[in-house]
C-alpha cells in the first residue's frame, strides 16, 4: 500500500498510518524499533532498500528524513507511506522543504514508535559534527555513521572518535566484523607470543585504521599500517617468535590463513553489502565499548603522528639526529 500526502502534518501522517494498518487487518508483526534515516534525494533509494531488507530481521518503522531546498523561504512537508509491500515494517519518506528542514526532529518525534528503541543512521557522506548532539541523533540510543563515505575519511573518523558518546558506531567498524572474527578464531589456537603486527589495505581506509588500532589495543603490541592497492583490507600479519600468522585477501573475496608449521587454509571472506551491515548494527543496541577503544586509539595516534609530522621539519627530535 502506498499513500502520498502532499503538504501535510505529522497528525495526518499518524492518522494515515493507523488507518493503513486497520485496512490491512493489522500486520501480525510487532515492530521492535524505529529507524531514522537522514539522507538526501540521491542516496535515499539505496538506504531505504537496505533498511527494508534489514527490517526482515528487525521489523521496524523506518522514518526517512530527506531535506530539500533548505534555502527556500516557505516550509512544507510531503510524506510518502509504504506499507506491506516489501517487508514486515512500515516506511515513511518525509521530504522537508525550506526552514522546516532545520527542525526535522519536530516532525520525527511524534512518529516514533512508543516503548521501543530508536536508531538514527546517516548513510552517505552527511556525517553530523557530533552525532549525539545532532537534533535527530539526540532522539536515538544508537547512532550509526559511515566515515568511509565522507570526503575526509580519516579526519571524520578521528572527529567521531573525539566526540564519541555511548551509542555511537560507524560502518567502518561494522565492515570489520568478519575480519575480526577470523583473526579471533586464528588466535583461539595455540600460538607463540605476538610481538608486532601489520594491517595492509588501500590508503585512506578508516576500517584498516580501526583494525590496526583494535589489534594494538587488544594485543598490546605496535601494529603498523601498510598500503596496498586494495580492494579494502588486503592482509593482516601478526609477528610471533615462531613465525608469522597471516591472513591475506588480495581479491576482496577469498582469504588465506597462514600459520607457522601448518598448511595454508582458505576461506571465503566477502565484503558485505549495506543491508547486512545495517542488520548487524540493529542487532545490538547497547554501547559498543570495543569500538570506542579502537576509535580513541586511532584518534590519539593520528594526533600524535600529525604532531610529529608538523614539528619534525622545524625542530628535529632527538631520534632524528
Amino acid at each position, binding site marked *: 500500500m502506498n499513500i502520498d500526502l502532499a503538504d501535510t502534518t505529522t497528525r495526518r501522517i499518524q492518522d494515515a498510518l493507523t488507518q493503513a494498518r486497520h485496512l490491512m487487518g493489522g500486520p501480525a508483526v510487532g515492530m521492535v524499533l524505529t529507524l531514522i534515516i537522514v539522507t538526501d534525494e540521491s542516496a535515499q533509494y539505496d538506504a531505504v532498500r537496505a533498511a527494508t531488507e534489514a527490517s526482515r530481521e528487525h521489523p521496524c518503522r523506518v522514518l526517512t528524513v530527506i531535506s530539500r531546498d533548505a534555502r527556500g523561504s516557505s516550509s512544507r512537508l510531503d510524506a510518502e507511506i509504504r506499507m506491506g509491500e516489501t517487508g514486515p515494517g512500515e516506511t515513511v519518506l518525509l521530504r522537508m522543504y525550506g526552514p522546516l528542514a532545520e527542525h526535522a526532529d519536530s516532525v520525527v518525534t511524534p512518529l516514533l514508535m512508543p516503548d521501543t528503541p530508536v536508531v538514527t543512521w546517516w548513510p552517505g557522506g552527511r556525517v553530523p559534527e557530533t552525532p549525539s548532539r545532532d537534533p535527530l541523533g539526540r532522539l536515538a540510543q544508537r547512532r550509526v555513521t559511515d566515515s568511509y563515505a565522507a570526503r575526509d575519511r580519516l579526519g571524520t573518523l578521528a572527529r567521531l572518535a573525539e566526540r564519541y558518546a555511548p551509542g555511537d558506531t560507524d560502518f567502518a567498524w561494522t565492515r570489520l566484523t568478519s575480519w575480526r572474527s577470523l583473526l579471533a578464531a586464528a588466535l583461539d589456537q595455540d600460538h607463540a607470543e605476538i610481538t608486532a603486527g601489520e594491517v595492509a589495505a588501500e590508503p585512506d581506509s578508516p576500517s584498516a585504521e580501526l583494525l590496526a588500532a583494535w589489534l594494538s589495543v*587488544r594485543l598490546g603490541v605496535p601494529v603498523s599500517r601498510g598500503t596496498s592497492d586494495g580492494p579494502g583490507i588486503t592482509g593482516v600479519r601478526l609477528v610471533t617468535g615462531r613465525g608469522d600468522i597471516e591472513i591475506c585477501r588480495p581479491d576482496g573475496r577469498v582469504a588465506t590463513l597462514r600459520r607457522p608449521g601448518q598448511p595454508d*587454509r582458505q576461506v571465503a571472506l566477502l565484503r558485505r553489502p549495506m543491508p547486512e551491515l545495517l542488520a*548487524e548494527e540493529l542487532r545490538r543496541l547497547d554501547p559498543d565499548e570495543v569500538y570506542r577503544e579502537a576509535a580513541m586509539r586511532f584518534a590519539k595516534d593520528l594526533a600524535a603522528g600529525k604532531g610529529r609530522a608538523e614539528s619534525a621539519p622545524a625542530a628535529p627530535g632527538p631520534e632524528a639526529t
Partner: protein
Amino acid sequence: MTIAHNPLRDPRDKRLPRVAGPCVLVLFGVTGDLSRKKLLPAIYDLANRGLLPPGFSLVGFARRAWEHEDFRQIAYDSVKQYARTPFREDVWRHLAEGIHFVPGEFSDPGAFEALAMALKELDQTRGTGGNYAFYLSIPPKFFPQVVEQLRSAGLAERSAGSWRRVVIEKPFGHDLASAIELNDTVHRVFPEESIFRIDHYLGKETVQNILALRFANEMFEPIWNRSYVDHVQITMAEDIGIGGRAGYYDGIGAARDVIQNHLLQLLALTAMEPPTSFSAEAVRAEKAKVLSAVRIPGDLSLATARGQYAAGWQGGVKVRGYLEEEGIPADSRTETYAAVKLEIGNRRWAGVPFYLRTGKRLSRRVTEVAVLFQRAPHLPFSETDTEELGQNALVIRVQPDEGITVRFGSKVPGSSMEVRDVNMDFAYGESFTESSPEAYERLLLDVLIGDPPLFPRQEEVELSWRILDPVVEYWAGQPAIDQYKSGGYGPDSADELMARDGRAWRRL
C-alpha cells in the same frame, strides 16, 4: 585446544560470533534424507555465515562406490535445493575443496582404516588438527558396529590437545533397558562428555526463547505455578502420515517417537525451576530434577489415549489409513496418536495436569506449548457479558510460524458490556532472518565448538523412558486400538480423556 586467554576475545565484544576451531566432520549415512535435507545444507549455511573455520573438512562415509566428486555433487545438489542462505560460489568452492568421501561397509575394518588414513591426510593438508566429530546419521542397530570399528581403527583415541566427539540422533533406545544398553555401547568407546545427543527441537529459537521468556522477564514467572495455572497442553501434531518410514515406525509408535524426547523435553523446559546459571550443567540439572518429579496417574485407562489413523481426507487429498500403508502388517497395533496426562510432584506444580499429545495425519501441522490459566476468581460482570470469555492462555508456538501468543479477554466495541477472547501475537525472527539459524545449524555449530547445553544427557533420556515405559506397557496389554479419522483432531478417547477433567484440547 584453546589457550588460556585469547586477547582478541572480549565479553563486551558481542559482534564476534562463536566460530568453530579447525576440525573434520565425519558423516555416516550421507545418503539418508536427514543429511540431504538438513545436515549438508546446514553445513553450507554455517560456512556462508563465516562460522566454520578455514580448512574445515567434511568426510562422507557410506556403502557406495563413489569418488569425492560424486559426493560433492550430492552435497551441491542438496545445498542448492535446501540451503537457507543465498548460494555464493566462493563459499561453496572452498567448502567443496574440503569435502571427501570414503566408501565402505560398516562391517569392513579395512574401510575404517581407510577412513583413518583419510583423516590423517586432512590433518596434514588442511590443518584440521586431529579434531574429529563423528555424526552417526544411521539406524541405531548399526551403532555398536560403527562405534567398535572407530575404536579399533584408533579413531576414538584423541591425542593431547585435540578432541573426538560423537553425535547421535534419536531414538535413544525404545525403552529404558535398550536406552541403557545403547548408552553402554557408546560409552565403552566415548566418554559421556564427548557424546552429543541431538534433539533438533532444542535447537529451535522458540524453544530457547522459553528460557528467555520465563527467566528474563518479571511478568510471567510470578504466575507460572499452581496458584494461577490451570493446566498445560503440549502438542505436536503432524498433517502427514508415516511416509516411507514404515520399517522404522511400526512397533515404535507415536509415544516413543515423539513424546519420549521432544514433548518431555518441552515439558522439562516449561516446568523446571530457574537454573543457577545457563551453563550446561545447571540447565541439565534442573531438567533432570523436574523430569524425576513427573508422575503418571495410577489408572492409565483414564489418563492415556491412543489411536491409528484411518483412511479419509486430509487437507483435500484422499489418504490411506495406517493399516493400509505399505509395509505395515494388517494387524499392527502401533499407535500413530498418543495422548497422556502427567503430573509433576513438586510444590510449584502439584495438582496442575500436563497433557501431552502427538499424532500423525491430523488436521494441520503444529507444535506448541500452551499454558492455560485459571479463570478470574470473581467476575464483576453479569453472566451474559462474559459467556464468550475463555481461559487466559500463553501459547509458545514452536513450529511452524514460531512465536508467542497471549489470549485474554477484551471488551467488544459497542454500547453493551461484552467480553470476548482476543489474541496478542508476537512473531519475531526465525522465518525472516538470515542471522537466526535453523535448528541443525545451531546444533552442528555447538557440536563443533563443544558447547553442550542444548543436548540432552543420558540421565534425561533414562528419566524420560522411566516416565513412558509403564504407559507403553499398559497399551501393549490392551486388545484393541481406536481408529481416528485422517485430517481430524484425533481419536474420541483423547477428547474423553480431557472431558473427564472438565477440559478440552485446544483446537488444532
